[in-house]
């Protein structure tokens, strides 16, 4: 019981860290055609995430791997149910990854144009579809007792699902624009700041609508009503979102970015806490739902994996912080002139 509960929240934590880290990469990619007016702007944008995106993406691999290891039944039913959405995400991620590497390798505007498009598509599509997928998980997925999905890709594109998608895209765009504010100067920085200013009230509005819609479309609030202390997570998340604006006005961009990171983590945990103990609820019949208890691995595997995770995840966080710290500061002319730069 205890092991499964620990793993449930670790599972949520890994997804939250993935959204928090790769989220700003997705945001930058989504804003890329709009903020990147010149080739130089574009290069600053991709070099701002250059040293970090690859390590960020591994949080997805780990979240997926841990789902497989700790909750094999969830892994199998979730990913086969969400087949088309997941395939679209994976192809988008492929395009995004190689675009960074390929874009600067041939000196031809048409060549760069191809990869510029891929960067946008490869960032926007995952941002949207992760939101759509998670919102649908919050409200339940139509699958039966055999784990067979009764729906199509379009089943997922219901109003609440799309609302979740829009929420994620906005969260990530603000997160990305804040990262650009940290990493750039002059015009580009100004545009990034004004983007956050414009998007922030929209995000606030969408977040409020999402919180209200969750009351009607999901059963997430059941856990909160049963244990009202958990409402603190929602309050903290809203406070984090408000402090994004607070720090932005004071031009302390890193703090604003950090507040935005906490907003993303909070938003993920809003759902994770509400879901507990469900990992993948069925909308056809609650009895078919996959939970931390009926879908987990054996106690031995959970124990071994817990030891691995307790040792290695702090180590990973340690060297990732070291890497972030190594590449702090603005993207400079010298950085761009560098042979290996994107």
């Amino acid at each position, binding site marked *: 019981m205890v092991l499964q509960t620990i793993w449930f929240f670790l599972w949520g934590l890994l997804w939250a860290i993935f959204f928090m880290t790769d989220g700003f990469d997705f945001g930058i990619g989504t804003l890329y055609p709009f903020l990147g007016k010149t080739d130089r702007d574009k290069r600053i944008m991709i070099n701002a995430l250059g040293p970090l995106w690859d390590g960020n993406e591994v949080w997805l691999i780990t979240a997926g791997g841990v789902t497989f290891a700790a909750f094999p039944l969830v892994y199998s039913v979730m*990913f086969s149910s969400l087949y088309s959405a997941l395939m679209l995400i994976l192809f988008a991620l492929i395009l995004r990854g*190689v675009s960074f590497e390929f874009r600067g390798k041939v000196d031809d505007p048409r060549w760069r144009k191809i990869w510029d498009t891929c960067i946008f598509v490869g960032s926007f599509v995952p941002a949207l579809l992760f939101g759509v997928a998670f919102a649908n998980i919050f409200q339940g997925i139509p699958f039966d007792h055999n*784990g067979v999905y009764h729906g199509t890709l379009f089943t997922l594109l219901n109003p609440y699902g799309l609302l979740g998608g829009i929420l994620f895209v906005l969260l990530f765009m603000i997160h990305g624009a804040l990262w650009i504010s940290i990493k750039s100067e002059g015009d580009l920085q100004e545009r990034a700041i004004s983007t956050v200013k414009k998007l922030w009230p929209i995000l606030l509005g969408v977040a409020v609508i999402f919180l209200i819609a969750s009351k009607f479309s999901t059963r997430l609030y059941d856990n909160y009503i049963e244990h009202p202390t958990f409402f603190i997570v929602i309050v903290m998340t809203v406070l984090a979102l408000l402090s994004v604006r607070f720090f932005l006005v004071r031009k302390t961009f890193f703090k604003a970015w950090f507040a935005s990171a906490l907003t993303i983590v909070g938003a993920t945990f809003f759902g994770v806490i509400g879901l507990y103990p469900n990992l993948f609820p069925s909308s056809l019949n609650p009895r078919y739902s996959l939970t931390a208890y009926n879908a987990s691995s054996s106690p031995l595997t959970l124990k071994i994996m817990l030891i691995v995770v307790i040792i290695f995840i702090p180590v990973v966080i340690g060297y990732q912080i070291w890497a972030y710290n190594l590449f702090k500061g603005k993207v400079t002319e010298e950085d761009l002139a560098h042979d290996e730069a994107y």
Partner: protein
Amino acid sequence: MDVVLLSRLQFAAATMFHFLFVPFTLGLSFLVAYMETKYVKTGDETYLRMTKFWGKLFLINFAVGVVTGITLEFQFGTNWSRYSAFVGDIFGSLLAIEATTSFFLESTLIGVWIFGWKKLSKKAHAAVMWLIAVASTFSAVWILIANAWMQNPVGYTIRDGRAELVDFAAVLFQKYAIFKFVHTVSAAYVLSAFFVMGVSAYHLLKKQHIDFFTRSFKIALGFGIIFSFIVVIMGDINGVIVAEKQPTKLAAMESLWETTTRAPVYFFALPDEENERNKIEIGAIPGVLSFLVKHDINAKIQGLKDFPREERPPVLITSFAFKGMVGLGFYFIIATILGWWKRNRLVDSPKYLKLMLLSIPLPYMACELGWVVAEVGRQPWIVYGLMKTSDAASPIATSQVLTSLIAFIVVYGLLGVTGFYLIAKNALKAPELTTDN
């Protein structure tokens, strides 16, 4: 076409494409780390230029390898959900450990290496590449332990209709995993060595940057000659293990139909699966197979007819892939020994250089053939003796898989063309004369 067949095609396409890039990364990371260390120790600029030149090719490869690896992990869930539910307790944890312990390190440090030339000391920067090399090798360790478990499941019990872990050490340290790892990684090192030798040969043939490419060639040659031997020796040991654990695979590899003592090896055999015999057999050497896998020329080896038809792997594909791989393995030994003999007069050996240039694709073929032997030879099982491939696929619509398969072919096709175009472009152009460091 059903979901099982389409999913198999999709997985085969995705893995085989992924494995066009992975071996190069595995081997070249060590070669680049070695070159950079030489630069740090000697201060010789040529080594720095070598690090940058080969490092650039490494990075292009790495990018394609990484992005195509992600789809593999998720395909177990999307296309093989019955399999995933059955084996997740063991197989899933191995993949998760791989990501947590190795892939994270590799991916975080690759960014540090690319962008960190001026942010780190020279020593630290070289150390980063060593860590990348070690981490990618450990990635291979975990993935191959997982694959070995599919070939020879150990340390489990069947409970509630799935395989549950009972002995983790048995899974980690089974000899199938250990020898498979050494064999596969050695093959990867041979591939990267042949790539470096082949590209160097191209420039030496044109008599340009002779010092630069002679040195590169020799570094790769030393690496290549060692691992050409190791890969063949390990292959031989693997054969012994396969004979013990997967008799159907062994019989298919050798297209051996009748159970017999003094089992032969055929130089060439064309199997006729319908009539359970070989249509053509050339150059049978009696006793060799018995000797190779049981160390006794009189040992009895089980033929395919000993097993029900529905438990035999496709014989033609398995045996041809096997023979091709073995032939290439011996060729690599000969080619590297020849290189050793000519190592101090490479520029004056245009025929040998041409041979090495043309040899670049051969280790790629050998690696792919090796996986064909391993995976096709395991059929009809997805987990040998435990679960049939036909019972492992997801309960999803055929149209979904057909659509994604087409998308894979299109996207990977374009990716492959672009990737190899960039690799070729950067491999054939002259190395930078000066560096910005």
